[in-house]
């Protein structure tokens, strides 16, 4: 399967997207956020909570109140370590318990503090690299499964039920299991702690829950002789911090998209872009795949007419991720068709669009998402829609396929819903395994025409965004007609300008190399 599209135009789109991404990069480079700082604390191994407030929040808020945050947390921790000889975790404990105020300790010379910070960062990274090695070895110990990876969700609200269902799904043939987060966790400016058994429409993302699920999936992997990818969500006010949890607990894929936060969660655009950058940077270091949320862009607008916005967002997302240091093989661009089934030839358009994305981003582990918005309580018709979706996914050789559920319009999946979905997907994966090689669009037919039109539209929008500037474009509703104020939205108060002593050696290539070497 190949669409006859202009490679030059694709290159042009990439170039413009790069300029847009550079604009973002330029504007956020001087900024940090409370979440980035908390992420750094978590990287240093700081954990624990007091009266339901995580230490990392207490520390950051403490510095913020004292107007000392512009140096960054690492400056103060390193300084405290130098002063007290304690580990970062012990420093945190003392600060939280009020034993001392980090800002009141004697300030060592910047060079000394910097050295200490670099030492702490190197230690932290090399510890994490060791973990990563072990996980890679585990992954390599299993044979790869037939492409595409079949991705299902669990969302009971109770981590133990999630685990039961995740294992069941794995036994049925699922390759990736995502735990959907409790509604609005992305609006929380902290990460809850501990094992949780109550949630709304999903289960809280906590380090403890991550760990339990990881154990369960590694266990069932042995049983089914297949590696099971663990998936969770970064997007939200804790984007960078959650990335750290993912690294700490060995997750494989993180849903990660600032645009989703801006548009669908009303997060402040600067805040979440800064958070996203650091989160992607960290995930990239540890070879964790990200997936983006372009499926959401066509859930509320005419999905046929406005499809090109998906491409626009993908081009920008690709550049943003690359600028955060990620290689293309880790950038799982998301997409979906969400076409009204009543549209004549809807299946041809779905196929064309899926192929177009695959072709524009051949190295991306693209994630294809199923029809949801036109599903109703008619579970039989929904199952028919999903079966055809599975065919399109296999045919166009997608890399990760999020399976649709017959009960999409009703509830988060029951154990049998997932089972039926997987059964259909496994059948299609086997029955049409050679489709992508054996079938072809006719040359210059309707598919080629639509693909070219879409690419042209995407380019036009990209040009508009470049001209207006991305922040302005967002405030004018370029994405799905949703308008967001530059200073509006949640979390703006957590953004700050880095001061001249601001320290973040985790971003330092030399430090990273050193840590990596040390981990061998």
């Amino acid at each position: 399967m190949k669409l006859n599209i202009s490679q030059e135009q694709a290159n042009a789109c990439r170039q413009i997207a790069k300029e847009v991404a550079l604009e973002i990069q330029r504007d956020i480079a001087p900024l940090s956020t409370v979440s980035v700082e908390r992420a750094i604390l978590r990287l240093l191994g700081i954990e624990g909570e007091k009266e339901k407030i995580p230490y990392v929040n207490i520390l950051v808020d403490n510095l913020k109140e004292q107007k000392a945050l512009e140096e960054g947390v690492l400056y103060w921790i390193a300084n405290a370590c130098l002063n007290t000889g304690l580990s970062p975790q012990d420093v945190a404990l003392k600060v939280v318990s009020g034993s001392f105020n980090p800002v009141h300790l004697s300030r060592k010379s910047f060079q000394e503090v910097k050295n200490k910070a670099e030492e702490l960062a190197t230690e932290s990274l090399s510890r994490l690299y060791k973990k990563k090695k072990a996980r890679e070895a585990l992954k390599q110990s299993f044979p790869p499964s037939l492409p595409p990876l079949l991705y299902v969700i669990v969302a009971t609200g109770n981590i133990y039920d999630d685990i039961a269902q995740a294992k069941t799904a794995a036994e049925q043939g699922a390759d990736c299991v995502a735990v959907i987060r409790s509604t609005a966790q992305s609006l929380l400016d902290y990460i809850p702690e501990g094992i949780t058994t109550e949630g709304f429409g999903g289960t809280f993302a906590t380090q403890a829950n991550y760990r339990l699920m990881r154990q369960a999936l590694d266990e069932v992997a042995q049983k089914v002789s297949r590696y099971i990818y663990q998936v969770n969500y970064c997007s939200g006010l804790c984007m960078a911090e959650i990335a750290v949890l993912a690294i700490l607990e060995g997750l494989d894929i993180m849903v990660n998209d600032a645009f989703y936060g801006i548009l669908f969660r009303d997060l402040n655009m600067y805040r979440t872009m800064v958070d996203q950058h650091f989160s992607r940077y960290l995930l990239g270091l540890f070879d964790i795949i990200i997936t983006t949320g372009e499926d959401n862009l066509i859930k509320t607008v005419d999905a046929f007419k406005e499809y090109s916005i998906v491409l626009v967002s993908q081009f920008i997302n690709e550049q943003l991720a690359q600028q955060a240091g990620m290689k293309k093989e880790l950038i799982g661009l998301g997409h979906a068709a969400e076409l009204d089934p009543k549209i004549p030839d809807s299946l041809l358009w779905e196929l064309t669009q899926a192929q177009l994305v695959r072709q524009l981003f051949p190295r991306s582990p693209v994630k294809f998402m199923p029809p949801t918005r036109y599903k109703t309580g008619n579970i039989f018709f929904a199952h028919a829609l999903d079966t055809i979706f599975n065919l399109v996914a296999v045919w166009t050789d997608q890399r990760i396929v999020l399976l649709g559920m017959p009960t999409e319009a009703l509830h988060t999946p029951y154990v049998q819903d997932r089972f039926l979905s997987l059964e259909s997907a496994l059948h299609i994966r086997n029955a049409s395994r050679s489709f992508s090689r054996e079938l072809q669009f006719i040359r210059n037919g309707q598919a080629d025409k639509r693909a070219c039109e879409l690419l042209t539209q995407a380019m036009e929008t990209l040009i508009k965004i470049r001209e207006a500037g991305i922040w302005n474009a967002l405030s004018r509703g370029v994405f799905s007609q949703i308008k967001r104020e530059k200073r509006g939205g949640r979390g703006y108060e957590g953004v700050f300008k880095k001061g001249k002593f601001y320290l973040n050696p985790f971003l330092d290539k030399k430090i990273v190399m050193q840590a990596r070497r040390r981990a061998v």
Partner: protein
Amino acid sequence: MNIGEVRPYGDRMNDGAIQISFSLPVPVSARSIEAVKLIAARMGMNNIRLVHAQDMGNNFSFYILYGAINISVDLQAIHVPEVELQLFDFWEINDLIRREFERKVVVIGATIGVDAHTVGLDAIISAKGFGGESGLERYPQFEVFNLGAQVPPELVVEYSKKIHADVVLVSQVVTQRNVHLFNLSLLAELLEAEKLRDKLILICGGPYINAQVALETGFDAGFGPGTTPLQVASFIVHELMKRKMRKK
């Protein structure tokens, strides 16, 4: 059997044919199969055919059954909670408001709690409307304020006070652990506490909302899937007139 009585139909009148499916947290076994049939029997099914029993892994199993039930219902005798709403058209609605109410009707819309689903509410409120019909914003006699999604109930109360709202439209889509019932009841109580409840027409809507949910949570009406703006506008006008009559 009485003429108004109906019973499920498979391929002949009154055969009572139904299909059911469910999972059990045990693997398939002779025992589990008997258990499934027992469950069906206790539900009143006869002629039970267990047509599919399959292990799903991890000690779960899935079953599909067909059978017949002896239950029939007298349609005539059914009490339908609400008589079908009499619909006005666009012009009638605006005329009626102009004539009977003498000022614009002020409407607030919001998806409350942490629910982020706006499509349903927008379908009713926003100019572009739903299913070819314009939303309330297009009606000259409605003045509409759409607060969007993830709105805390407290903010709805505050805003209602500020702009002297006549109608509050609330959408709730996420229902896990009955969070929608919680949010709706909370809003109704807050309005009550502020003595605003009686001054307002309080309407909820969403895919899992119905008259009963409205009743339970203290709302005046609840609209489910497929609701059109006209239905909501008509209800508002009916309610306004009813209240005006009552006052006289």
